[in-house]
């Protein structure tokens, strides 16, 4: 997602959640809409704001509130940068195993609001698996909390789940308690190129009952593979489609799993087999994580559908010149649409068959980034899902005057109708 330049002078930057709560309540009284800002990595995500908004930033809410590392939980304010958080956790040999692009800028609250994830999501899960407590401020300025600070807790409604991926449209996240994992001793990536997508499909089928337990199963087309290899300065073979498998654990586990994965791949005749281990691993993980935001192409999408259909989708997309990275075992595909496309009509035509395909495969296609003038003509959040009316009902209960990021999410035009009636 590209960066949007935001006028910083008009921003309200509270020093405490209580201060933010009071400010939001005042805005609410004046029916002034609000746009919450974290690390400014995803401001371009979703539909353009329907009305001019007061910007509020969490840049000063960066405290580590409580880090009882023996309990493997941490409570932090939502404005903390992901890199800062990772650094604190690393000092205790722990981590939050979610891959976040631009982690030097991205804030925790923003990453949660956009439900960001990356290659490790297959083995480690996503934010919904780690956020165990949350505090946030709703559109009326009410500072509320849900969950708690213990790893297992079913008291009250799970508003943590509700806020993960809610794009700042239900509440402004101010503080989060996370469940943590131990830092693995080491990791490795097995990078293999294949002649055809059919062989990749067969390998993906084989991996379902692999004796190894990869934490990442990535499929890349040659264009994406080149980009990622060069980003990692790894000089990996990238003339053909790639399957890249990631494993984590002790040195012994890694050694055993890498050998096992190579052995299990053999029947599918990889052209080239490489391994990133030791110092070369981290840059490659990073490049795989950054791919989503690394392109200058005019349109980037995320498709979600059944993992068994990955290869069919990859073939279709590659034929249209789209660079693709698939978190294959999760059925998630990131695609950068080729720069030759210069009009919204062309863009719509290119993604139309892919959208149809994802619908048939029980999924959808979301546009992560594109020229802002195209947005009103493209289905940014894909085709309507059956649960959207219920989501709109939820939005209207929590934000009756449509003040938080108005028009930005699935509600789109409905939101405007809502606010007109309000």
């Amino acid at each position, binding site marked *: 997602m590209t960066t949007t330049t935001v006028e910083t002078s008009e921003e309200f930057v509270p020093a405490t959640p209580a201060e933010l709560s009071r400010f939001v309540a005042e805005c609410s009284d004046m029916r002034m809409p609000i746009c919450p800002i974290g690390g400014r990595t995803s401001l371009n995500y979703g539909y353009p704001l329907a009305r001019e908004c007061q910007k509020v930033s969490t840049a000063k809410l960066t405290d580590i509130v409580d880090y009882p590392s023996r309990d493997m939980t941490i409570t932090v304010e939502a404005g903390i940068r992901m890199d800062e958080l990772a650094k604190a956790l690393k000092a205790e040999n722990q981590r939050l195993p979610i891959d976040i692009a631009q982690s030097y800028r991205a804030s925790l609250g923003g990453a949660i609001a956009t439900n960001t994830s990356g290659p490790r999501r297959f083995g480690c*899960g996503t934010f919904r698996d780690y956020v165990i407590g949350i505090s946030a401020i709703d559109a009326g300025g009410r500072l509320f909390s849900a969950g708690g600070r213990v790893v297992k807790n079913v008291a009250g409604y799970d508003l943590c789940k509700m806020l993960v991926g*809610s794009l700042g449209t*239900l509440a402004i996240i101010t503080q989060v308690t996370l469940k943590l994992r131990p830092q693995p001793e080491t990791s490795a990536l097995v990078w293999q190129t294949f002649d055809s997508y059919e062989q990749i499909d067969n390998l993906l089928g084989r991996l379902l009952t692999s004796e190894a*337990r990869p934490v990442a199963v990535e499929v890349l087309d040659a264009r994406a593979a080149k980009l990622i290899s060069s980003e990692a300065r790894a000089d990996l073979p990238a003339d053909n489609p790639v399957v890249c498998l990631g494993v984590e654990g002790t040195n012994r*586990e890694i050694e055993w799993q890498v050998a096992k994965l190579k052995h299990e791949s053999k029947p599918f005749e990889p052209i080239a087999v490489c391994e990133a281990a030791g110092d070369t691993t981290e840059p490659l993980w990073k490049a795989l994580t950054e791919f989503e935001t690394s392109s200058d192409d005019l349109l980037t999408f995320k498709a979600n559908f059944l993992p068994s259909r990955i290869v069919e989708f990859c073939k279709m997309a590659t034929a249209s010149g789209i660079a693709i990275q698939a978190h294959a075992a999760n059925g998630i595909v990131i695609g950068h649409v080729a720069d030759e496309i210069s009009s919204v009509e062309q863009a719509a035509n290119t993604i139309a068959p892919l959208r149809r395909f994802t619908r048939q495969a*029980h999924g959808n296609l979301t546009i992560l980034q594109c020229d802002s003038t195209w947005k009103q003509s493209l289905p940014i959040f894909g085709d309507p899902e059956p649960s959207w009316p219920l989501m709109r009902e*939820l939005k209207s209960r929590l934000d009756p005057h449509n003040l938080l990021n108005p028009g930005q999410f699935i509600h789109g035009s409905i939101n405007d109708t809502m606010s007109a009636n309000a």
Partner: protein
Amino acid sequence: MSTVIQHELIGRFREVVDDDALLHAPEELFVYECDGYVVEKKAPDVVLLPTSTEQVVRIVKLCHEFGVPFVPRGAGTSLAGGCLPVGGGVMIALTRMHRILDVYLRDRYAVVEPGLVNIHLTRHLKGTGYHYAPDPSSQGACTIGGNVATNSGGPHTLKYGVTVNHVLGLEVVLPDGSVAELGGPAEDVPGYDLTGLFVGSEGTFGIVTKIIVRITRDPAAYRTMLGVFETVADATRAISKIIGAGIVPAALEMMDQGIIEALEAAFHFGFPLDAGAVLLIEVDGLEVSVADEAHQIVKLCEDAGAREVRRADSDTERQLLWKCRKQAFGAIGRLSPSYCTQDGVVPRTKLPEILDFITESGARHNIRIVNVFHAGDGNIHPILLFDERDEDQIARVMKASDEILGKCLELGGSVTGEHGIGVEKINFMDKLFQPNDLAVMADVRMAFNPDGLCSPRKMLPTAGACGMESIERSHPGKQAAS
């Protein structure tokens, strides 16, 4: 419900379900008057046993039309009164909707009906290399629909997560009788995570009629160990050492002397009767790693003062160990006629403190308390033994329970790790949450259940839509009838 309305409503229900799926004679309703929380009882006026989503829709629409409250029920194994029909009304028991509709191995999901018994899914998957991970101790009886309602855990959730971590999507009948599809078999459906919000809502958002669950790869290898300790304090020290060493066991369960005695009498496993506590520890993963981890765990237990650490050498022995653990509640019948299981959570480093407090509280109220619980995630299950025919004992059990849960809160924990709020803990909600928190939760419920007819007076200490009056908890256990 007035007799006239009841009569008319039953007549309308007859058009929806067969006669054998409609119960209203008092003697037929006895079994539905409580769940595993026997302190509160209230029989519903009518019980229906639908077999399809369409029947559930028609039943709910009729309840809606007549303004009669309704409550869903699975197998009734819940332990906090979650499926108690507070104030009476209609109970919709989903046990006849128990089919496995589809299993897609390549896409790692299964579609099941809510009445499916938890363990039946894992049995069905045997041989595929996959299983359904959430494994509550009652998994031989409890239903997956009920697990969704309470967001159930189980011993292996320490490593694999609770129910919500394994649910991809739901088909639900909302309280107005409309059907909604939340989530789906693909991950990251655009929009809010209503599936995640619905799981654990204890039947207050609607009735689940279909569940899309993630299935999990079987571990390649296990090592199951039994650490024997002189005292509970030694055992908790071992837990701290294991977690502190960066090992995440698949399960880490503690049983104290009181429960060991009952288990030994029931199963003759060979538990040491003079031990203060035993830890049941399981690691799973790759063959190359479990041996190392097991070795490390043995060493850490010995450092913490373990008398011995036994290993389950065969799968039969492992199965027997787990059978003992999971049927521990059944064995309690040997100790007393009734029991009340508590479900507090503390940060795991606070386990020694809470266990001392439990012993002290039991002594003060002259109530025998035994412990069997998920030590790895700090989820305690003190079991308070009593005779429900003795009102004074019940009052003392309630008092001790409240004190223990209050102490959990004081230590930074929660009053429920996996059993839910139900009716039992509703009065703790305003101790656990601030007025704003509860107000936002009430708003969220309004989006799903605006009339408050679905599972009234549950979860939140307000009546919901109409009234908003507070429920006074009158000891012992009379609120269900209110």
